[in-house]
């Protein structure tokens, strides 16, 4: 049923991710780990077409962007690595536009899933998502998306420490956190409160569950002298108008003649 669960039906549990943009190093380990797990798990495989050719295509459930931020304070620009996947929104229009009932939001934990047995591959859900979280799998003709590793987090065949999404388990920087954002006392909720975690595009009205922790303020400081370009050039005698500089200019002219 693509109608969203009502407030009474919802358990209050909102499983999701908290992504720390301060510590993410942009290594793509989460994306690779996601691909590896999900090519054998729910809605598997997650195929690539022409993977080693010149124009590979394929569905990935997690993509890592990198942005450059000009802070306009005389400091060097900042690089921010930005993992992007399904935010398991509370009001996901990707679910309500689905004509078949293949897309649904689980009442028990808020996870948004696609049933690969009933998806007709009309792609309308991907049009309705402002976050680009859904990718069509051309080799299966169905839509693929982050499952929050629903086949890991409840899997009693796994060791307890492995019962979390593959991306969270793989992150070497500890930039990804998983938990219940519906519980104000959970570790993730406290982290969001402490660090000022925010929603992506809150004006969309989709109420994303996943939160992003902003990069921490930078320590202010002056740039080391050696890093300043003009000084470095002066040391080589270029362009300061001294006798030596004039000599080198003359020599350059003579030699290029």
């Amino acid at each position, binding site marked *: 049923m693509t109608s969203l669960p009502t407030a009474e039906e919802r358990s209050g549990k909102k499983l999701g991710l908290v992504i720390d943009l301060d510590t993410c190093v942009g290594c793509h380990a989460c994306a690779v780990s996601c691909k590896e797990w999900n090519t054998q798990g729910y809605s598997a495989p997650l195929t690539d077409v022409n993977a080693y050719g010149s124009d590979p295509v394929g569905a*990935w459930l997690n*993509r890592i962007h*990198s942005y*450059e931020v000009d802070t306009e304070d005389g400091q060097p620009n900042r690089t921010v690595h930005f993992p992007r996947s399904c935010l398991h929104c509370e009001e996901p229009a990707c679910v309500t*536009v689905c004509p078949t009932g293949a897309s649904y939001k689980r009442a028990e934990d808020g996870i948004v899933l696609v049933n690969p047995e009933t*998806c007709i591959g009309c*792609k309308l859900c991907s049009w309705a998502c402002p976050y680009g979280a859904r990718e069509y799998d051309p080799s299966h003709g169905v839509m693929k998306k982050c499952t929050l590793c629903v086949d890991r987090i409840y899997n009693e065949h796994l060791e307890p420490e492995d019962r979390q999404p593959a991306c969270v388990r793989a992150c070497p920087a500890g930039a990804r956190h998983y938990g219940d954002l519906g519980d104000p006392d959970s570790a993730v909720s406290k982290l969001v409160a402490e660090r000022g975690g925010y929603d992506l595009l809150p004006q969309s009205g989709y109420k994303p569950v996943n939160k992003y922790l902003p990069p921490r303020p930078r320590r202010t400081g002056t740039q080391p002298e050696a890093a300043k370009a003009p000084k470095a050039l002066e040391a080589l005698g270029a362009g300061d108008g001294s006798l030596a500089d004039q000599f080198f200019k003359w020599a350059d002219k003579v030699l290029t003649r």
Partner: protein
Amino acid sequence: MHPAYSVIFFTTASGAGYGLLAMLGLGAAFGVVFPQSIWFCLVALGLSLGLITLGLLSSTFHLGHPERAWRAFSQWRSSWLSREGVAAVATYVPAGLFGLLWLGGFDGGPVWKLLGVLSAVAATITVWCTGMIYGCLTTIRQWNNPLVAPIYMALSAATGLVLFALLMQGFGAGQSWHVVLAIAALVVAAALKLIYWRGIDQAPRDLTIGDATGLGRLGTVRQFEAPHTQSNFVQREMGFKVARKHASKLRRLCLLVGFAGCLAACVLALLLPGAGTMVFLVIATAAAGFAVVVERWLFFAEAEHVVNLFYGTERA
């Protein structure tokens, strides 16, 4: 948005088919179309249902699993696409019975007229649902616009009325008000489209890459590196861009060759007697077809999806 040919053909062909069906149904109710002519029924209703059916079939070509298309009738409570599917199939019921009674030689009874009205209502609802599939998407500024569904209706009515005038003329029952009605619908459609184009051109692009990423609080945001070396599905489907100068050229073509051409041909059809009327109505039909196909291509090509902000577009 990527303009898929199957969807362009579907929306324009079925739009014209539903417009013609609505006109035939109302024409029956008001005693305009001939209840006794089996040939007129076969050609006119056949053309209308043929366009609708071809359009619906073509719309299944862009599905990953066309054999599961029947599942799309289930979620009418929340989904405009599902509502459209239900309405499209439901329209066949009154339209089919309307055609059967017509072929059966029931000349103009009240049941036949009622079925005509029901067909017209069902056709109208279906076209409205088609427009709302796009109109309800808040992710695309150019689509989430109150004029989108009315323009789908106006273009469906205009193309249907041009076909209706052509068919009536072809069967020797053409009257000038058929053409006048087509002209009126064309003027309304073109006016709505002009208002729509002006509206989307003037609307502020107030969302930035900084808003989308939430990094705008730190300063000016630029894409430093894309997540992948080749375009992915999201970029191919949602990242289609048409150059501004091509778009304005195509808008002019749509308006001048399509709408104005069709209007001029309709006016000439009114002025010229006999065979000339028929010739100009054929030209008007071709021009109307050209207008809606170009309009529909632009409707997709000019639509900018908010997700492009994550891929480096500065404003949306």
